[in-house]
């Protein structure tokens, strides 16, 4: 507690949290967007699937890629993006592929264009899967970020915590861990909220969403 008060008074804690949060957000956005796009692409097109799918699985098994990027800011971003990419990619891909073919056929009979078919049938059908990917990816975001910041950084919560460890400031170490936990929880709550909102049609997610409408 004392550590929290001391560090917030000096503003240090906000600076570190802000930097960590920005890194997480940027890495998540980058990895999430590419994962989402390629997931859709490979889910919809067999050609794209043949071209990219096994390539991605290959990259996944080469963790040493990080050596290319060294240990600077870029590397942290890359590490987070890579970690986020796969859960989002795989779940988007799987979700797009497993949309009920009966519904797609119905859409064709009832005169939907390709564009409408995607917007009204395929995307909403894949959404539950995609959100599972998002939730999983958010966990990975924080995990990889902690590792990256702990290994090498000159700012961020990971840096703050490692630094504190060097000086035996146990209270700051605990504070760092708490902040990480809090941020992780916050991110998870956001996805749950999104699930409630976007999947209110789904009996399993409805919760209070149905009455709210």
């Amino acid at each position, binding site marked *: 507690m004392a550590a929290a008060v001391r560090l917030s008074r000096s503003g240090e804690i906000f600076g570190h949290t802000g930097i960590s949060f920005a890194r997480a957000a940027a890495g998540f956005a980058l990895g999430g967007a590419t994962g989402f796009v390629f997931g859709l692409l490979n889910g919809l097109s067999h050609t794209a699937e043949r071209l990219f799918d096994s390539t991605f699985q290959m990259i996944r098994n080469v963790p040493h890629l990080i050596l290319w990027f060294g240990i600077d800011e870029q590397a942290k971003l890359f590490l987070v993006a890579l970690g986020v990419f796969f859960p989002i990619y795989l779940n988007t891909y799987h979700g797009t592929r497993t949309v*009920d073919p*009966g*519904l797609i*056929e*119905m*859409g*064709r*009979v*009832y*005169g*939907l264009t390709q564009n*409408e078919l995607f917007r*009204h*049938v395929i995307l*909403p*059908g894949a*959404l539950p899967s995609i959100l599972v990917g998002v939730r999983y990816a958010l966990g990975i975001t924080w995990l990889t970020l902690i590792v990256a910041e702990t290994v090498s950084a000159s700012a961020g919560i990971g840096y703050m915590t490692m630094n504190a460890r060097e000086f035996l400031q146990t209270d700051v170490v605990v504070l760092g861990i708490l902040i990480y936990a809090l941020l992780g929880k916050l991110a998870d709550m956001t996805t749950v909220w999104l699930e409630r909102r976007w*999947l*209110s*049609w*789904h*009996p399993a997610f409805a919760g209070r969403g*149905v009455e709210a409408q």
Partner: protein
Amino acid sequence: MVQDCVEELRRVSGAIGGVEVRVSHVAKRFGVHSVLADVNLDIRPGEFVAIVGHSGCGKSTLLRLISGLDFPSEGGIEVDGQPVNRQLPETRIMFQDARLLPWRRVLENVGIGRRGEWKSAAIEALEQVGLAARAEDWPAVLSGGQRQRVALARALVSRPKLLLLDEPLGALDALTRLDMQRLVEQVWIQQGFTAVLVTHDVGEAVTLADRVVVLERGRIALVQRISRVRPRPRGDANLGEIEGEILARLLEGNR
């Protein structure tokens, strides 16, 4: 006489009418497996035809060919003189499962694929099937029978001239099925579209259809005309007799 009765009703109610369907020398093969062979069937505008047969006899395949979802290996299908080489906008299908979009509310499901001012027409269609009160519900909270009624409303909202029914009542309980049969017959009389019903329930076929076509191993084995006044009472002796004959034919053919 009977036909005159229905036509008179339609003339009075200003029905839109149906299309003529002509199936000539149609064969369909999947690989080496032959599903339909030399099927010929002419359906008059506004006629109600039921196709019955064992599972795997090709009746659903024939329906898919008429709908334009699939194409024959040989022969041709014409709707009002136009060869069916795509899904025609005047054709609508009701599937065995309702196939509602679970993420769209009932009203939006009914209006799917409609352009422009579709809401009032969708509400009207829902009223026709007696579900206007459920317009803002999710499909997940409806019963099986209600979902099929929504699917029927969805098919009706575009005022189809050809309605293809692919065992749409097969999964419903007996009482709901009777209600649905009456509803289908009612809208068929009102709107005057041509209807083709695929079913394994001979009783249903006899109750609803002007003609019952028995399909056996991909060929038409029997065409039975039924001219009884509508609505036909359940348990009618005459109809029961016809039903018995068709059933006997089906069982015999299976041997």
